[in-house]
């Protein structure tokens, strides 16, 4: 019997919702975006929490937003950020700012690198992973 040495295969890490964050993921499964809003702050917030950041006010509500936003910043990783993403090739690690205010870590897809521009309008791309029971939210150019 021979021993072969193959590199270990790393699965892409996928989100595992918690009871508190479940409404966000349930909405994504419906291809909708629901995040929290604090009436006393007068602000939308992200990511989900039990109490509003800064004030710890107990008034958070789930509200649907369109998901439209602008590209706040990005980078193209020419080297894999970890073995889990080695097969993905260069990735566009992006931060999108929703029109409602909060920022969201995501990945830009369906776009040539040279077309990326900070401040460009972007729209949601819902990516379903049925085996994991999760939907990821990525972004593409709005036009």
């Amino acid at each position, binding site marked *: 019997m021979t021993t072969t040495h193959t590199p270990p295969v790393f699965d892409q890490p996928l989100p595992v919702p918690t009871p508190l964050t479940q409404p966000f993921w349930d909405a994504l499964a419906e291809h909708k975006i629901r995040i929290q809003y604090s009436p006393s702050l007068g602000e939308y917030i992200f990511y989900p929490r039990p109490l509003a950041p800064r004030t710890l006010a107990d008034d958070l509500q789930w509200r649907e937003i369109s998901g439209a936003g602008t590209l706040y910043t*990005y980078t193209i990783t*020419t*080297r894999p*950020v970890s073995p889990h993403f080695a097969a993905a090739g260069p990735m566009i690690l992006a931060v999108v700012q929703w029109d409602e205010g909060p920022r969201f*870590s995501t990945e830009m897809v369906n776009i040539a690198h040279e077309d990326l521009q900070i401040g460009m309008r972007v729209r949601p791309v819902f990516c379903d992973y049925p085996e994991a029971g999760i939907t990821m939210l990525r972004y593409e150019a709005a036009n």
Partner: protein
Amino acid sequence: MGLRGEAAILGFYELPPQRKLAREKTFNLEQWARLSKAALDDAGLEATDVNGIVTPMIGEASMFVPSTITEYLGIEANFAEIVDLGGAGSAAAVWRAAAAVELGLCDAVLVTFPGAHDVPTHERRPFVMEDQMFFGASSNSYGSPQAEFEIPYANLGQNGPYAQIAKRYGHEFGYDELAMAKIAVDQRTNACATPGAVFHGKPITAQDVLASPMVADPLHMLEIVMPCQGGAAVVIGNKDMAAKSKNRPVWIKGFGERVPYKTPTYARDLMYSPMVHAADQAFTMAGITREDVDMVSIYDCYTITVLMSLEDAGFAEKGKGMQFVNEHDLTFRGDFPVNTAGGQLSFGQAGIAGGMHHVIDGARQVMGRAGEAQVADCNRAFVSGNGGIMSEQTALIFEGE
């Protein structure tokens, strides 16, 4: 508010970094003991003078870390502290030790940061590659916001997020990649005057930096720290200890610290780092101005960290940092000496001990022990620490007697 400047760095020890460990593998606890002894010897103090310790996390204890160390060293500490502020940890540990000395809790405090993570393994105790190694200190535990909202999008580790900061900086203020390269080049010049630096004897040009592989745009490989194996320690003592010490005391005159977030996605304004607050507090506490400082040692995991820290600490106008870099000679022989021992970019980043390189760079200069790289008449130093992704920042001001 703050320190009275009655606690001083009296001795230090910094292992020359090695890209691959050529020394004997030792556990963090063994490193703790040996680094500490070397720093005490440097100060001319006895182990029995020590009654306080500050440490980062270590490999051999996941809790009860300080008492594990005091037991191992046989120190009965009046103050035993663990800091978990990443690259800001060393500077953060220094002011905590100084505070303990000024409160009268301690005569002498060891601040020791083991920096060789290549530790012994045994077939019955094999090395387990933990999530932390892969996920670059982003927590992948269930319930962690990073596990749920960052890691699945590959927003993890350091290269990507720092590149996002640099990209946004370019959008808001413009980007001069030659100025960014010059930061790395000037530090390399300093490393070439620092025996033991991992890049000693290997000068580079701006073209070398820009020709090195792009890792996460706009950051090239030579704008990113070289991970190394090493370790460092300092001894901080009161006036009585300073009188016993053989070195010129380096009084800790001021500090500041700010810790507002973990992931830059959630920074309220990504272009103004926590250093704005930390540096203002440090200078106010020390009662000196930016112009009074003879050298600065700025945490340099990336060139963008140096650039934004120079701006946010108030040495360069916001948005004009690249112009500042172009207009000043940042080498030890220049008009604005930065990271005179090479910084982590060119001296080497010994894991969690990386931040101690800046503490020791400042102390070494103020003690007048920097050899060829000595800044003439160096009496005051500014030191910064930076952890997470520009998310944990600490500033220190040193003054020679």
